[in-house]
């Protein structure tokens, strides 16, 4: 029987609504499922122009993922999924060298790889942080 499932409408909408945007859950449509999540630290040492952290995902497929990087500080943390070099703001305790920072991430059959890049060799040691979600859903 194909006509089975679960639907939960958003507040103010009926469960018989025909627009799936009006549902918080609709089993006719898949949703991302989180396998693991965590924080990683990028320990920058003098001379580094990049730091890569790998996280083994332990999946038999190459899974989808989501990453955020804390590269800058202002009134609140600013998170980036990926970006090219951007000059630091005036107040940036996460980058005491005052160099431009970039970040990116990719996944392969074994690991999620998260990297930060520094526009020129670091002249002091400091730590940046990243956050990741590894999903059950595939990339291939």
């Amino acid at each position: 029987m194909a006509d089975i499932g679960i639907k939960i409408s958003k507040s103010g909408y009926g469960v018989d609504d025909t627009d799936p945007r009006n549902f918080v859950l609709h089993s006719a449509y898949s949703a991302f499922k989180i396998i693991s999540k965590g924080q990683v630290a990028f320990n920058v040492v003098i001379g580094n122009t990049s730091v890569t952290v790998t996280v083994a995902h332990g999946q038999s497929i190459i899974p989808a993922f989501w990453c955020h990087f804390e590269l800058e500080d202002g009134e609140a943390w600013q998170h980036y999924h990926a970006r090219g070099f951007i000059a630091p703001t005036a107040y940036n305790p996460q980058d005491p060298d005052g160099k431009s920072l970039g970040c990116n991430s990719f996944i392969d059959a074994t690991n999620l790889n998260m990297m930060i890049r520094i526009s020129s060799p670091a002249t002091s040691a400091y730590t940046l942080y990243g956050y990741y979600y590894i999903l059950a859903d595939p990339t291939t």
Partner: protein
Amino acid sequence: MATTDYGLKVSRPGYSIESTDERELAFTSERNVLKVKVQGATTVNGVSSTSIAHGLAYLPAFVVYGEITAGSDIFYAANPAEWYAEVDTTNLVITVSSGAGIKDFYYYIFIDAGS
């Protein structure tokens, strides 16, 4: 029960359904969930584009994973130096701006609006 006090909550193992910390819930109908309208694999050969019709009359949210180099099986969620993705009211368009070979991509287009 007030008419607005309804829904579904599923707590994560080890946590109570009475928890007030939403991070301890696997699902709560008080929060929307990104719902996948369509997902699939595609390729782009060299510097060119491919379009995927999403069948929605608005700009949907999306995410694309693409190979860093053709045949590498190493996937980025963003690589603006070599490829990018954009959506209009008809298509998701994946464009490779540099690099040779056939690159694999995998996309998710969501029911939920991207703007």
